[in-house]
């Protein structure tokens, strides 16, 4: 009776749901499959809202195949879905999914090391650690201890999963050493973690390493931050993924953090960041006192950020609302300009400009009139650095071979300098010096779009 009530509830409440512009899968509406539904929401959030999925199906399938091998030796009935995110950080969100950061991958040198990272996250899924933390104690010292226990268990059991899958257990301490740099309250200390998995690996180097296999999949992979999401080039902030640029003025104080640009002029502030197009549409639709302009850059919507209007009518709506509240967005009451733009290649994305100008309309209009289409030169200069493989001409440690790369320091950051390399095998380099992007002379702006707020209200 109870079970039937739940199913009826789900069918009644969740039919025909969509989220960030896409229809929700059956897991979110036909059956109470929260794991898969939450996993889908996570992927949608990364892709449609944050531009945070690394779009390389071959690489994704490769890492998924590693997860498939590991899952065969676990208690899981099926492998979790793998998503490659476009930033750093690797985690298991609630749901049947692991998210592996592209920047995490670039620091690893063999397939077995990637397997070590995937195995760690898989243990979190296998051990129901998300649920464990959620329904465990409050966020106090005991909660932190629970988290540290879960992280330690994930490290150690990952060694067992590597063994079951035929990977070299010695890859686990190497992977931790490559990825960990600082300690925090939620993980055991770095040195303890490495020491414990090293004890379990017990110097066993038998098993599959797969350096050649990994490097073949990393060839041409972007290195570091994807500069197409925002890059200072000459005197302009260029968002190549949107094909737009904002000219910067000498009288402004410029602050850059990741993909976000902040301009300050006296008491006026502008904050600018790219987002996914579905999320841009949703944010634009939510603006109060909204005015829409169809410009040559795309659809520009101007207004005041409102609060999320969705109600708590059904459980999925509540889940979505909570997820949406965590996405990049302007605080309620902020003056906002949202650009919804599709480039010539058909790729669409959004741009949010938050304005807090304290009545300084001159600065506001100067800033907004600085938004224009990016030039061909700027677009080329914003191309990210990528990995290229070169063959080692002799047998040596990697640190003694990186001098062959265009940027030896960058190459050394991509691998373990002490790694022995056999003559004829590949090493990872960047395709150029990482600081060689900025172009000295910015071409003249080719297109300006002035957005006048004054008088529109």
């Amino acid at each position, binding site marked *: 009776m109870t079970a039937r009530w*739940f199913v009826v509830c789900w069918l009644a409440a969740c039919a025909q749901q969509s989220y960030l512009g896409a229809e929700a899968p059956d897991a979110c509406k036909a059956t109470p499959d929260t794991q898969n539904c939450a996993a889908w929401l996570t992927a949608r*959030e990364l892709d449609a809202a944050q531009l945070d999925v690394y779009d390389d199906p071959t690489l994704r399938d490769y890492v998924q195949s590693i997860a498939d091998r590991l899952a065969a030796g676990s208690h899981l009935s099926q492998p979790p879905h793998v998503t490659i995110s476009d930033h750093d950080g690797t985690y298991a969100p609630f749901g049947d999914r692991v998210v592996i950061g592209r920047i995490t991958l670039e620091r690893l040198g063999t397939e077995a090391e990637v397997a070590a990272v995937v195995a760690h996250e898989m243990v979190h899924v296998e051990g129901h650690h998300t649920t464990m933390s959620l329904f465990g104690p409050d966020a106090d010292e005991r909660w932190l201890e629970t988290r540290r226990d*879960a992280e330690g268990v994930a490290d*150690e059991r990952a060694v067992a999963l590597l063994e079951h899958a035929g990977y070299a257990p010695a890859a686990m301490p190497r992977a931790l050493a490559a990825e960990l740099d600082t300690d925090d309250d939620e993980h055991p200390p770095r040195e303890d973690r490495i020491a*414990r998995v090293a004890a379990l690996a017990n110097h*066993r180097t038998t098993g599959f390493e797969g350096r050649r296999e990994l490097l073949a999949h990393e060839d041409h992979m972007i290195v570091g931050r994807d500069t197409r999401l925002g890059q200072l080039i000459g005197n302009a902030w260029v968002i190549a993924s949107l094909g737009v640029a904002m000219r910067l003025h000498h009288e402004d104080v410029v602050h850059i953090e990741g993909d976000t640009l902040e301009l300050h002029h006296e008491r006026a502030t502008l904050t600018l960041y790219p987002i996914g197009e579905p999320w841009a549409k949703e944010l634009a639709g939510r603006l109060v006192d909204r005015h829409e302009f169809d410009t040559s850059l795309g659809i520009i919507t101007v207004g005041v950020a409102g609060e999320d209007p969705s109600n708590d009518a059904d459980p999925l709506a509540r889940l979505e609302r909570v997820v949406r509240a*965590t996405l990049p967005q302007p605080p309620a*009451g902020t*003056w906002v300009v949202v650009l919804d733009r599709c480039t010539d290649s058909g790729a669409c994305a959004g741009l949010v400009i938050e304005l807090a100008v304290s009545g300084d309309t001159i600065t506001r209009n100067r800033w907004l009139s600085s938004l224009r289409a990016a030039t061909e030169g700027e677009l080329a200069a914003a191309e990210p650095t990528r990995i290229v493989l070169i063959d080692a001409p002799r047998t040596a440690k990697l640190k003694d071979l990186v001098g062959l790369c265009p940027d030896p320091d960058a190459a050394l950051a991509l691998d373990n300098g002490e790694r022995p390399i056999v003559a004829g095998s590949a090493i990872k380099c960047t395709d150029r010096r990482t600081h060689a992007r900025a172009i000295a002379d910015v071409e003249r702006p080719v297109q300006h779009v002035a957005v006048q707020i004054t008088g529109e209200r």
Partner: protein
Amino acid sequence: MLVRTIAAGSPFALATGVRRLLLASFALINLGGCASEAPPPLVAYPPLAQDCSPTRIGRVTVEGATPADVAPLAVLEGTLDDPERADRIAGVATELLQARGYPYAKLEVSRHVGCGTELHVTVHTGPRFRIARLEFRTNDEFPATERVLAVQDGLGTVNAVGGAYLEDRMKRALTALEHRYHEAGWIDATIGTPKATYDELRNEVSVSIPIAAGPRYRIGRIITRGGSAADRRTVIEALGLRGGEWYNGPRVRIGINRARHETEHRVELHYEIADQGIVDLDARVK
């Protein structure tokens, strides 16, 4: 807003934590199976021989439940034997069972020598209880459906009729619900301690929640002080509020933010209870 984080964070970085962690507030305790895609054919690498060193947990066996029911303990297989950690994890696994509706769940963990150390977990779940009734003792006009949904957790599996009862999560939800009352104009509302009554024959729980809502407040006068007459007019217009309307927290905040953006001055908003059910707003232009 939920501030707890889920346990499955990165081993390497937690920078984007809060965003993904909120997903966990809707975790289902029932971790059932899922539809799967056909996996591509895999080249299997030969597995390595199991390491049965005495410092390692070589095997975990479970009696009285499935390994998935005590998943945090089941994944100790292959880890270093750390009895204190295992005891702590057994405690958390017990709490997880309680969160699934087994308030009397108990676990016993014993150790044996085999392939290294072997753990044997005996699970006594006891009866499973479901919430049969969830009553709010009040006659206020706050939307009844919103009240019910505000205390639900786990997409309806926790603190909802038919689901498990978790007192600590209920108390947390009631704190948030009390805030929503305030935001909707019941500025004096207080919510008391929930009372749960267990029916051992029917395996049912009845939950009763007392709410003292008090009056719902309307906006009285809207006063502006300081600045020029033009500033004050701008503030009044930007606030977009009228005397006689129900007090609404989000609308007031949007209004004051709009006023701040449209004047060159800082604007502070003060509230004053003018009368029973009337709140005056006092905007001060600095």
